[in-house]
């Protein structure tokens, strides 16, 4: 009975979303107060209903109701409780429901925190979000209903994919979806603005924290995914240019461009049409990612059970959302007046350049991801595009970005001189060269790529500090203090520096050894002696493992004791649990391969990964920066003030 309630609640949510998607929109168009007033309550009710539905599915997992087909397929009686909960979103149906839930929560939050905006505008924004919900809820109900029964019920279920029985998997999808779905707010904002035919800087200001928070969650989500792949897949890699990784990375690139262009639009009234277009693209790419993961169009390690019916449905949905929004853009965007009131050397230009590089990088990733599809459509046979393509082109397209990052914040709006901007960066420039030279001297034979990474990273970090130095040198500005927006920007930029150092060092100086080792044997890697001490059987709740013991010594001192495992799960999947000794400057990584010679020896992978933690540390910095900036007082709604300067800064008013 309880699963039926969940389904019923989901159907009701769909109906409410329909009401939200249609009535307030018409109301705003025709000026019907009562229809406009429906928007907020409908958003709250929809959120409540979807939350109830989600809670009931979680309940089915917790009490192990194996008569629900989805539960039976992705959980079993010995699955530990925490994974029973995360199994809710461990496969296609439940993860769609999670999408719908997060979207409904965002919609409700928009309804709650939008009092500074005119009611008609809010009604339109909520309506657009309602329409997006209609798409997701009907997709869930029509093609991927998680509440379907399997009668008679099974005695026991299958099992959750062991890859997903892990902390990283509990948190990775919700964070990622928070980001994807968060871009829906920016999207709804852009569509509402296009319908309205005018934009007010206050509205842009209102939309910025939403985009920043969404971007921060997306950053965290991608970083978690990368970290999880690193310790769980047993290959020691942190990024594979897999279609699904790309699908989450493309919205991130466009989202990064968007938060910068939004800043320009809000502060200077420039790049308005561009900002609207980016907002549409960022969310469209999130949907495209959903399509790629779930349609079976591309082969990927992440792909959910693929199903062309679902694919067709998502594609139709994508067509409505993106096609509709872009058609609206084609029709309405020319009405927004443009005033290119900035010179080639100015902060606007630098931020525009940032956007150009980010969009180009995103286009490159999109091309590489879809190329196999193009090749098949053209009859060129099955091809795959892998790391060689991305690994070559991506750095080329993003290196200029790293070089330019420090200049942006110190450039003046509207007009500036190149020499004036560059002058304060002498110290940062010298610092970058000195640190790289010192590193080269200390670690002889450091590869060129590592040196380049250090130069770029130190340049970005020192360049970011240059901003602080200049700021403190100005007594007036110093007295006012740094705004949270600026602090956030500085943290995120510094994070970029940390990130690039990590990436380049890992990529160029990692040591990876695949060995055959018997008990008692040792191997030396970068002055550390890894000894294979023992291996013994071990029973887990739903698996059996071979539990290895490796001791790492530096001279006689024990540096770490590592316990890699090879697990055989109840559903016959075999998993490699790598053992990792994390460190600020290096990770030691041991993974068991296959037993050799009837168990006398094992294939063992031993990796030494310098500075790999810096990759995720950098991402955490970026996320923190985004959240800090979102918390800026200036961006927070203040009704009283909003009323006083209402209309004072309308921009791009419709013709």
């Amino acid at each position: 009975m309880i699963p039926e309630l969940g389904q019923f609640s989901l159907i009701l949510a769909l109906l409410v979303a329909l009401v939200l998607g249609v009535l307030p929109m018409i109301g705003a168009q025709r000026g019907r107060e009562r229809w406009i007033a429906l928007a907020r309550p409908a958003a709250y009710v929809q959120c409540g209903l979807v939350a109830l539905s989600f809670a009931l599915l979680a309940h089915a997992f917790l009490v192990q109701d194996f008569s629900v087909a989805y539960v039976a397929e992705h959980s079993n009686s010995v699955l530990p409780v925490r994974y029973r909960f995360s199994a809710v979103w461990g496969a296609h149906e439940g993860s769609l429901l999670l999408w719908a839930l997060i979207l409904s929560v965002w919609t409700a939050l928009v309804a709650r925190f939008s009092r500074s905006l005119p009611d008609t505008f809010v009604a339109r924004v909520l309506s657009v979000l309602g329409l997006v919900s209609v798409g997701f809820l009907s997709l869930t109900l029509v093609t991927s209903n998680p509440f379907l029964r399997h009668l008679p019920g099974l005695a026991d279920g299958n099992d959750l994919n062991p890859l997903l029985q892990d902390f990283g998997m509990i948190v990775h999808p919700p964070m990622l979806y928070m980001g994807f779905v968060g871009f829906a707010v920016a999207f709804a904002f852009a569509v509402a603005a296009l319908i309205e035919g005018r934009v007010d800087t206050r509205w842009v200001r209102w939309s910025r924290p939403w985009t920043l928070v969404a971007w921060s969650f997306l950053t965290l989500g991608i970083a978690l995914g990368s970290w999880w792949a690193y310790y769980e897949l047993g290959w020691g890699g942190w990024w594979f240019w897999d279609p699904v990784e790309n699908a989450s990375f493309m919205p991130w690139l466009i989202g990064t461009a968007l938060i910068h262009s939004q800043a320009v639009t809000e502060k200077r009234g420039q790049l308005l049409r561009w900002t609207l277009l980016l907002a549409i693209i960022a969310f469209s790419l999130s949907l495209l990612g959903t399509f790629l993961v779930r349609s079976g169009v591309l082969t990927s390690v992440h792909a959910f059970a693929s199903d062309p019916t679902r694919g067709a449905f998502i594609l139709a949905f994508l067509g409505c959302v993106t096609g509709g929004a872009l058609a609206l853009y084609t029709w309405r965007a020319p009405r927004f007046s443009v005033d290119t009131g900035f010179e080639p050397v100015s902060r606007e230009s630098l931020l525009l350049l940032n956007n150009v590089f980010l969009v180009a990088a995103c286009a490159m990733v999109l091309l590489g991801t879809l190329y196999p599809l193009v090749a098949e459509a053209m009859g060129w046979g099955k091809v795959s595009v892998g790391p060689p393509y991305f690994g070559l082109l991506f750095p080329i397209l993003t290196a200029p970005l790293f070089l330019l990052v420090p200049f942006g914040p110190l450039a003046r709006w509207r007009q500036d001189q190149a020499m004036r901007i560059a002058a304060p960066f002498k110290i940062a420039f010298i610092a970058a060269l000195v640190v790289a030279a010192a590193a080269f001297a200390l670690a002889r034979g450091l590869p060129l790529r590592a040196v380049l990474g250090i130069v770029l990273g130190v340049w970005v970090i020192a360049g970011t500090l240059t901003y602080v130095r200049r700021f403190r040198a100005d007594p007036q500005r110093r007295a006012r203090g740094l705004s949270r927006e600026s602090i956030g920007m500085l943290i995120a930029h510094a994070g970029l520096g940390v990130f690039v150092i990590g990436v380049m060092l890992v990529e160029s100086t990692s040591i990876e050894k695949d060995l055959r080792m018997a008990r008692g044997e040792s191997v030396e890697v970068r002055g550390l002696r890894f000894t294979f001490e023992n291996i013994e059987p071990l029973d887990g709740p739903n698996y059996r493992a071979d539990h290895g013991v490796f001791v790492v010594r530096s001279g006689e001192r024990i540096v770490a004791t590592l316990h890699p495992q090879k697990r055989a799960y109840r559903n016959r999947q075999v998993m490699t649990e790598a053992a990792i000794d994390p460190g600020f400057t290096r990770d030691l990584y041991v993974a068991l391969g296959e037993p050799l010679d009837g168990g006398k020896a094992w294939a063992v992978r031993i990796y030494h990964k310098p500075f790999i933690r810096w990759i995720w540390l950098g991402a955490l910095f970026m996320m923190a920066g985004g959240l800090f900036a979102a918390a800026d007082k200036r961006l927070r709604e203040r009704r009283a003030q909003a009323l006083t300067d209402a209309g004072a800064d309308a921009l791009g008013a419709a013709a």
Partner: protein
Amino acid sequence: MRRLNFAMPLLLFAGLAVLLYSGLGKDTRTVPSPLVGKMAPAFDLPDLLDPTQRVSGQSLRGRVYLLNVWGSWCVACVQEHPILMRLAASGRLPIIGLNWKDEPEAAVALLRRNGDPYSAIAADREGRTAIDFGVYGAPESFLVDAQGRILYKHIGPLDWASVERQLFTRIEGSTP
């Protein structure tokens, strides 16, 4: 002309949508089994229910049969089970089980609980025969004719529609 600039994103997206549509429904994963039309790989395995007996491809010569790869650990096989029971009851096609990487006790217990649709069951504990057949995951079913040729391979659980459309239509021509 200026309009066209604003329509660029829309046009690009339309091209992308056409491309994505063309990719739908195409199978990017499985390559058609190279075994279809060829002789079934030879096998000779102990009988699951009576390990003193053997089940071999040679002994099955002269009969059309369905080789069904299953295991008690495989939920999709349990879902498929009623269809196999129905097929066995129809008497039109004998089913030979290939019990894949399974504990014999668990397999027998399952059959005792849900019924046994198989004419004979070969126990493939090590999974060698399944490798010879190119089994990718359970359940999979192979339709083998009287000469020992593989006529058809079905991946995933059978449903009654595919039993009628894929199996019965193929065996009508050949003699049972």
